[in-house]
């Protein structure tokens, strides 16, 4: 029900969003290694998973982000605010990443709605198949050769889905004030 072009588009959109929003500086290195999902619990990752959804009439995306529970990841995101916990920083980082995905998809699907971020037990990842996803992809992401997280993109479709996204630079208009 989801065409290969649409699956490739979801992947391109996610990679672009991750490179620009999961990093604290878009110039930082961001490497993706495909992973198995739902896979075995990764040693050293948080026992919480951050979950966001984007929904339209025809499909729903569940983006889950599981941040590394280690010194390197905490140090990497500590620059976002000295007194902030990794969990607090991760909520907004995830929100920005999902927002960037939403920003690209809205060009093709104007009826999109996005959730606020939720922190759930990572045990929930084992039940993603219950959503009967048509497309699921997981990546181990390494940021600036140190910080790491597991990202899982899960798409459930209720109608045939076929589109090709040419990924635009999400930095062009972000942060600018559009006056009405």
């Amino acid at each position, binding site marked *: 029900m989801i065409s290969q072009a649409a699956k490739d588009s979801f992947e391109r959109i996610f990679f672009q969003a991750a490179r620009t929003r999961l990093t604290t500086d878009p110039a930082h290195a961001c490497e993706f290694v495909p992973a198995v999902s739902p896979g075995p619990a990764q040693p050293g990752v948080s026992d919480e998973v951050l979950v966001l959804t984007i929904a339209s009439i025809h499909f729903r995306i569940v983006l889950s982000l599981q941040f590394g529970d280690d010194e390197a990841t905490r140090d990497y995101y500590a620059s976002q605010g000295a007194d902030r916990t990794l969990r607090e*920083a991760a909520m907004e980082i995830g929100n920005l990443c999902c927002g960037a995905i939403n*920003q690209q998809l809205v060009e093709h699907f104007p*009826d999109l709605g996005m959730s*606020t971020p939720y922190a759930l037990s990572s045990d929930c990842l084992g039940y993603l198949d219950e959503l009967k996803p048509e497309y699921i992809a997981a990546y181990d992401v390494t940021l600036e050769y140190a910080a790491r997280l597991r990202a899982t993109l899960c798409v459930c479709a209720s109608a045939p889905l076929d589109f090709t996204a040419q990924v635009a630079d999400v930095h062009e208009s*972000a942060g*600018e004030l*559009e006056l*009405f």
Partner: protein
Amino acid sequence: MAKILLVDDSSTVRDEVAGFLRKNGLDVDTAVDGKDGLAKVKTNPGVRLVVSDVNMPNMDGLTMVEKIRGELANSTVNVIMLTTESSPAMKERGKAAGVKGWIVKPFKGEAVLETFRKLAN
């Protein structure tokens, strides 16, 4: 009495944005969701500019704006949305509710500081 009210459920955004504005001499109060924001606009007539997220628990930002204009009959306070949402439909709803401007996150303070300063005075 604060002239800018920043409404966002993310403590990260509240710290970052309010911190930047205060560092630049602006008087800022914060609220954690639309319900809290509505209550603070109601009890603080000195608020000249509301900067608000859209997606928040309890009450979303656009519903808060509709209530500021409707229930509170406050047509003078300026409202800017600061959000990850960028859909035309969402912006249209904001315009209809009396929102003055829209910023897609992330927040870039230097780009909007002077406009915020004007709208808050």
